[in-house]
């Protein structure tokens, strides 16, 4: 293989890995959730601007209007915040004026504090 092809392939691979690779933090009260895994509407882009002076909340609250995928119990099971290499570079290039993260969450399952009987 010619050297320029090798370099091209290596660059291509680095680009793919850069898209895939990221740093994530998972906060977990329970790994179990009230829904099927990987619900698209429970993965949100989170933008903040001007070093955090302007930012929008990610809402899972069922009482907030326009929420596509609310947590019916009003409670979360786990949250993952991911920063990709692209996110990192974007923050660096804009000197922190624009920042992006990806937030994924799982809602708490319906609780059954006392076991019901068929008669109640």
């Amino acid at each position, binding site marked *: 293989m010619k050297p320029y092809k090798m370099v091209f*392939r290596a660059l*291509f*691979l680095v680009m*793919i*890995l850069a898209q*895939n*690779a*990221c740093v*994530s933090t*998972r906060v977990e009260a329970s*790994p*179990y*959730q*009230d*829904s*099927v*895994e*990987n*619900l*698209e*509407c429970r993965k949100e882009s989170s933008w903040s601007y001007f070093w955090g002076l302007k930012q929008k909340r990610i809402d899972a609250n069922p009482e907030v209007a326009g929420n*596509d*995928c609310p947590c*019916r119990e009003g409670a979360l099971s786990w949250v*993952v915040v991911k920063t990709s290499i692209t996110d990192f570079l974007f923050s660096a290039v804009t000197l922190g004026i624009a920042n992006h993260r990806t937030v994924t969450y799982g809602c708490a*399952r*319906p609780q*059954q504090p006392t*076991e*019901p*009987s*068929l*008669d*109640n």
Partner: protein
Amino acid sequence: MTPLGIDPLPINKWTNKHENFTHNLVPNTSFKLWNPPGQKHRERYMATTKNFQWLINHAITNNFKLRAIGSGWSFTKIGVTEGGLIDTAGLNFSFPITQNYTSPHYAKQPEDLYFLQCGAIIHEVNSRLSAKSPQRSIKSSGASNGQTIAGALSTGTHGAAIRVGAIPDFVVGLHLITGANKHIWLERASYPVASQEFVHWLDADLVQDDAQFNAAIVSFGSFGFIHGVMIETEPQFLLTEHREGPLAYDNTLKNAMKTMDFTGLNLPGTGLNGDMYHFEVLFNIHEFEPNNPAKGAFVKYMFKKPFQLPHVPLQRNNDFTYGDDLLGIISTVLDKLPGSGLLIPAMVNLMFGLAFKPEPPRVGTIREMFNYTKFRGKVASAAMAIDIQDSPRAVELIVEINKQKPFPGGLSLRYVKGTRATLGFTKFPNTCVLEMDGADGQPARDFFQTVWNKLEQEGISYTLHWGKINFNLNEVRVKQMYGNISVQSWIDARNELLERPAMPVFTNQFIEQCGLDKINGAIV
């Protein structure tokens, strides 16, 4: 406008838990169910039954397909359809059964029965049974516990319970929503469990039929919506787990693998903590040499004894482990970088220690022992069931194939009692499930294909796990695996139970590919 208890799900595509595929859905056809409020649980349960029927009617009227989905752990498209998904994970009621709801002909006691709504997950069921006084337990579990009960039984989820079997094997009744105007309580005629009062509680039609029950119990969501599941439980018990190895892969081990007679192995702990309950053999096939103890097998086994206090519950550890994206990155490198396959043995040797290492014995309940899956990210898993007699030969064939096509993962053999389910993949009276788990990508898939081809060439009879990677399944192979009579019996049961207008709603490409979608009497 949907009825109370049905939320539209704004999804157009969905990726399974293990990230093996992303499936496109028809917009505005997916929904999430929850139990509407009501005075009594019966009222709430029946409202959800009506909601299932509303969904079937809605799908028939608007000509689209539906599939109930549990936790979404399956590795294949068996659990999805070319229409919409119904998220049932929020339907998690569970009820103890009393004498008046038990058939007078039931062979055991009412406290042995437990009625679950479809979305109850195994962890939840275990927790609720453990909270009873005296404590109870499910009879067996898969390796982990995040599946819904309906999802786990529908694909034949299994562990390595050598005398109990897989999850469908302790299910004794199903509440099936089989049409816009029909729902049934289905149980075996030879093993009645529910009284007329229970059937009235459901407001369902009673069907007692062994063949139909055995077909419906492993039917991948294609017999309608499973709303309720009756399982049998037993008094709480303790498992003592041992992880040993490496052991030489020699005639003694091969004999144990072929016969499940473990006496020659002199396993530590034998005779101290009850009978053998769980038996599993693991191989790093990249560091394997017959008769060499340093390059041999590892074993994981558990003994079962009655629950006793004091018992300190086992807790999940929080060790440093690989990141969520690691397997995805490995998969990308193996697929895209020429020559990267040479890295596979070194990579597997490095990761095998993370996946399995000998440890001191530990004691716990089923709830504590079979915990949330530790596999995260882009995982490939294929599982073949074979007769235990064939297990050493199959291992040796796989080791040979690995020399030509390195597999980015490990091999484990889990021993399970055979099932009565018509298309249950653990079909051999004494079944050995060969599991090949690793990083997904073309090398893994090439390896699976080569192994399946080799078993066919060598005349080793096998079946494939319905919920794991099984892309070679087709009508011919399904008939070879289960036999024409069993396949026809399954198709007949589906035709008899499902209302005719509902059949297209519950037909997906996967069952078409397997030739299981046939409509009896249809003019083709």
